[in-house]
């Protein structure tokens, strides 16, 4: 996937793919502690991917689907695809992407409010001049509001938008039919878009 020699030391994954597969199976079987063990592994891998991209292909970014697929390939690399395991893995990655982006944008806003910025190069200044879109925070807030009414659909939208999961993958995680997922995504997305237009009326 990458050219040879790209940031090799950072690219080495210390995690045993079999261990990740086992943890995914344990979690699917109802063992919540397996999810707790998996989360930091996925989190650290997402950060490594972001940083290694930065080093070599500055300004090239992946979309959420590409990110979660890549982190799966790097951590699991399984020869025999286990679609349910893979979908559950994507779910973890989607949840983490939401958390990472919300934290990142809050930090960026806090820094901007903080004043005391160091001298910037023109390039950096241009980056700062383009504020992170606060809409990610609005989406986060809207999903929290949706979760109060309907936790399952809030999860479905989180997977759809923050992990780029397909209806089939979401269906694996939620143990329902892809047709129902598609229907739920349509209704919940309509609610979300209405909420983003004017939250107080939704």
């Amino acid at each position, binding site marked *: 996937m990458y050219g040879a020699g790209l940031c090799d030391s950072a690219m080495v994954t210390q995690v045993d793919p079999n261990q990740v597969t086992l943890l995914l199976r344990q979690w699917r079987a109802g063992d919540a502690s397996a999810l707790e063990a998996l989360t930091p592994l996925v989190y650290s891998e997402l950060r490594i991917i972001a940083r290694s991209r930065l080093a070599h292909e*500055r300004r090239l970014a992946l979309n959420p689907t590409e990110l979660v697929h890549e982190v799966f390939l790097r951590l699991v690399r399984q020869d025999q695809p286990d679609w349910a395991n893979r979908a559950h893995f994507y779910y973890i990655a989607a949840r983490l992407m939401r958390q990472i982006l919300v934290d990142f944008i809050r930090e960026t806003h806090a820094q901007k409010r903080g004043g005391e910025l160091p001298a910037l190069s023109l390039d950096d200044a241009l980056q700062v001049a383009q504020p*992170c*879109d606060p809409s990610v925070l609005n989406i986060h807030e809207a999903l929290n509001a949706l979760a109060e009414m309907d936790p399952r659909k809030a999860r479905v939208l989180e997977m759809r938008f923050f992990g780029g999961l397909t209806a089939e993958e979401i269906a694996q995680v939620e143990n329902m039919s892809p047709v129902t997922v598609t229907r739920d995504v349509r209704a919940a997305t309509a*609610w979300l878009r209405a909420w983003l*237009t004017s939250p107080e009326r939704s």
Partner: protein
Amino acid sequence: MTSQQWHTAENLFHSALELPPADRASWVEEACPGDPAVATAVIRMLEADASPGDEIRQVIRSAVKQWMTA
């Protein structure tokens, strides 16, 4: 909305989608006379559903890009 209202709204939304677009709003208002909050929510959902746009995906994609290039 409460969970109950939301589930009502969702069902009405899906039923309304079966109708011609011009008939939907009046049908929704007639379908839930006792709960204007639900009717309003459904009509707003129908409007959002009908309006083109991929802004949620774009906003998240742009945030991912900013995070990866920060």
